[in-house]
């Protein structure tokens, strides 16, 4: 998976971090100190369809079949997350109770083309 630089062309992961203190959310979020809301961006030209790593998905299989048979598809391949991990959080809820939960699929680790 590629990490985006300043110039974005091909599908890559853009790191984006928010520190809760900067937005005064550290008053109710006890941990962690911030959130990595990374996201995927960039182009997926046809020769990159299904790379890296998600060829096993239904979409990639269909695209590849169409390509192999020389059928020109009008649809483009998309740049999407291929790996995500949960975010563990401890926070105050509106009753001033403290809640700890693991929110699934919150942090994008890598991106790829469908």
């Amino acid at each position, binding site marked *: 998976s590629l990490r985006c630089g300043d110039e*974005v062309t091909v599908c890559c992961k853009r790191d*984006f971090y*928010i520190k809760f203190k900067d*937005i005064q*959310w550290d*008053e*109710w979020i*006890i*941990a*962690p*100190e911030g*959130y990595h*809301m990374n996201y995927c*961006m960039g*182009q997926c030209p046809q020769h990159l369809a299904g790379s890296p790593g998600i060829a096993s998905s239904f979409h990639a299989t269909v695209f590849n079949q169409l390509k192999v048979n020389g059928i020109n598809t009008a649809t*483009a391949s*998309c740049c999407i997350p291929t790996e995500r991990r*949960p975010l*563990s*959080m*401890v*926070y*105050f*809820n*509106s*009753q*001033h*109770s*403290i*809640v*700890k*939960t*693991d*929110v*699934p699929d*919150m942090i994008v680790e890598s991106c790829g083309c469908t």
Partner: protein
Amino acid sequence: GSPACASCGLPAMEKDAEQKMMIEIAKQHLLEKLHLKERPNITQTVPKVALLTALRKLHSGRVRQDGTLELENSLPTKDQGYEIVSFADISDSDSGDKASLSLTFQFLQERGKSIQVLQSSLWIYAKLSEDPHRSSRLLARVFLSADEETSDSNRTLVIEKMIEVKESNWHTFPITHTLQTFLDGGQRRLRLEVSCEEGERNLCSFNGSLTKANQPFMVAQVRLRDNHSKHLIRKR
């Protein structure tokens, strides 16, 4: 800023405007995932020392030297689970002729959502017995109080157990079933009374003399119950 978005049609944005938009998206995303309509306004702060004591009991975090919390992932489960620590509103009440510790917990359940309590326990700090001639073990009782009145007739014994009082220490009282029954009833205020009677004294009472670190609290591990799947089962 970023170039225009070829696939979603967003126009090219200035870096500041993009940063602001991304922060707003992140805020909405987090609130949505935590099932919160808006960010909670914390009006009364829980003393940090009590907070860290409770979280340490949650066994779900290591406290770093600088006092910040390092989280550990809980066991991955299919449904999103929650571990809740709730500090009680505390008062000493007279039930009959003995003072007992009265704890009131507030709950707010979203309509249409029901909660399954996987486990829950009450953490009470019992002080050291000052009478060297007394037995080192004491019977501690937890009652469910039906409403504001504290006369014996409105109390239901939830659990009783012998506790060691040779030294001041924390003691846990499992209340899983009590909390589940309470939440299933859709009530909002759970009132528990704790008595650790030693003569005229209640070794479990919490008053100003104890440090905030020993504030009694409840821990609960819960999961949102999916009523919809129950219907599916019926169809099958």
